[in-house]
């Protein structure tokens, strides 16, 4: 290990005392300067000087997405506006966005975490990095960009979309590392195939960072296979700097959450009770190394668990599991909780199934129906109707045993489902409730 990654292997005790020092400092700053937190502390009879250990964190009420919207745009700001240099907003919500503000130090720190994460997965100064995330208000584009520059890679700020140009850039500059959403990676592979190109041989890729939308292990395997890369999962959210809150190491088993910057808790989403490591629940994060807009006990809405054991790589920062989905991605059909990620896992494990699918929810005579539309992959179609019927049966049986619910399976022609270049919209809820 080199001297610049010492923090990744810091002793737990030392890490926890660093966390406490940073938490204490954060509490004092928000109490003094953030109108929202000052009010919260006063209403709950809390005083930062009374906090004696990390355990006292549980005295603080949760901050929710609604709080961020209600206090839009400056209610959580903890520094004078003159120190703020950047605004980002969060994606994927309807109505009023959530504003996230950064000082120069916040940008530097966020970039540092990306640089740290990329280095951890083996990215080097002589790599060529093509960033296919959208630039602008979304943190995933710009923050990753800065992180890669900090590490010293050649950065191609391609942004999202314009697939043929992406392919041209990758070929001209022999791109070795990409940052991309998993659905766009699959789309890109389809387009290359149509152009008569083989992503494995006609490109020079070796690392892919997949992010910004939930996806299954099977999708990762598929992408690694198609492009001949190591694909790494990461986790981030604008409210907590953006990308690079947690990142997989080369073991690819859980994402190290950078605990020198965040305190993590897992709670039962219905009762708010804090759960033990290993138990699945909603991830709650406190930013302890942020100037402009620290957020305390933020309910992310993301479901995961903390690996109780130390990673084989030796890093001491604990790992979170691949997200099961967001609390609000889940849908309920006939009383059964269904996560789109479970359906995806089943579909991607079947070789005949193409890269695209769609989940349709309908209500007929007050009865919910779950319809899964699946594209049949061209090269695995063997020409017989019987084979298709068996495939349909196999998908239905596998989904039934996974979901405890019998879906209707509909095979459709390859390329007939809509494709997106950003976050894929897989679930269509036509139910009128």
């Amino acid at each position: 290990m080199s001297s610049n990654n010492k923090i990744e292997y810091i002793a737990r005790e030392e890490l926890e005392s660093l966390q406490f020092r940073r938490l204490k400092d954060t509490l004092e700053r928000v109490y003094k300067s953030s109108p929202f937190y000052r009010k919260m502390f006063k209403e709950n009879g809390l005083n930062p000087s009374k906090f004696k250990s990390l355990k006292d964190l549980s005295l603080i009420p949760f901050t929710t997405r609604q709080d961020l919207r209600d206090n839009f745009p400056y209610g959580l700001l903890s520094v004078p506006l003159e120190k703020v240099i950047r605004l980002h907003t969060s994606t994927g919500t309807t109505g009023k966005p959530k504003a996230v503000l950064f000082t120069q130090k916040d940008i530097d720190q966020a970039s540092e975490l990306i640089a740290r994460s990329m280095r951890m997965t083996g990215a080097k100064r002589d790599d060529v990095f093509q960033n296919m995330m959208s630039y602008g208000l979304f943190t995933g584009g710009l923050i990753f960009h800065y992180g890669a520059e900090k590490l010293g890679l050649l950065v191609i700020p391609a942004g999202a979309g314009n697939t043929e140009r992406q392919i041209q850039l990758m070929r001209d500059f022999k791109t070795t590392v990409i940052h991309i959403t998993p659905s766009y990676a699959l789309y890109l592979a389809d387009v290359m195939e149509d152009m008569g190109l083989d992503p494995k041989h006609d490109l020079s890729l070796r690392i892919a960072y997949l992010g910004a939308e939930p996806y299954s292990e099977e999708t990762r395997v598929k992408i690694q296979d198609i492009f001949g890369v190591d694909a790494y999962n990461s986790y981030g959210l604008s409210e907590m700097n953006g990308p690079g809150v947690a990142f997989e190491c080369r073991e690819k088993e859980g994402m190290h959450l950078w605990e020198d910057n965040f305190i993590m808790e897992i709670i039962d989403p219905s009762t708010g009770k804090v759960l033990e490591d290993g138990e699945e629940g909603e991830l709650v994060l406190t930013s302890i190394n942020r100037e402009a807009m620290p957020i305390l006990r933020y309910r992310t809405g993301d479901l995961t668990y903390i690996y109780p054991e130390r990673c084989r790589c030796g890093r001491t920062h604990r790992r979170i599991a691949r997200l099961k989905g967001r609390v609000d991605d889940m849908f309920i059909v006939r009383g059964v909780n269904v996560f789109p990620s479970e359906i995806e896992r089943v579909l991607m494990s079947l070789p005949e199934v193409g890269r695209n699918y769609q989940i349709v929810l309908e209500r007929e005579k007050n009865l919910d129906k779950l319809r899964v539309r699946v594209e049949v992959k061209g090269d695995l179609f063997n020409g017989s109707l019987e084979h298709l019927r068996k495939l349909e049966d196999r998908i239905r049986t596998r989904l039934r045993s996974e979901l405890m619910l019998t879906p209707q399976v509909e095979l459709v022609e390859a390329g007939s489902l809509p494709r997106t270049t950003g976050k894929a919209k897989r679930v269509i809820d036509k139910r009128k409730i």
Partner: protein
Amino acid sequence: MERVQQISVFAENKPGKIEKITAILTEERINIRAITIASGNRYGVIKLLVNEPMRAFEALKKKGLSVALNPVLAVEMEDSPGGLHKVACLIKEHKINVEDACGFVIESGKRAVLLMETKQIEKAEKALLSEGIRLLSEKDLYEL
């Protein structure tokens, strides 16, 4: 070995699906000898016998269709009462299971052909040839 390549296309059961295929084949100036459609509920398989199977396969595939190329036997029969029966008896005797089949007349009152799909294609081929049945090649079929 005389085998004929048959094209199968996966298609949803919706208007315009046959036209999509014929448009591509017309554009490529490929001639269709026979077409059958096996329909399931929401989708089916359209099967085609064409003069240039390989080129048709590539053209359809290039347009993004799910398409397969499978060998079938083109069994020559007499176009007279009992013509198909004779072949059917031989198939039964040799315990050959037929997956799918269709037939058409080549020369009215003289010759017809049975296109036969089976998983036991080699066995069927040997059996029919040993019984003196003629299997038509692609060349035979398109130079009629």
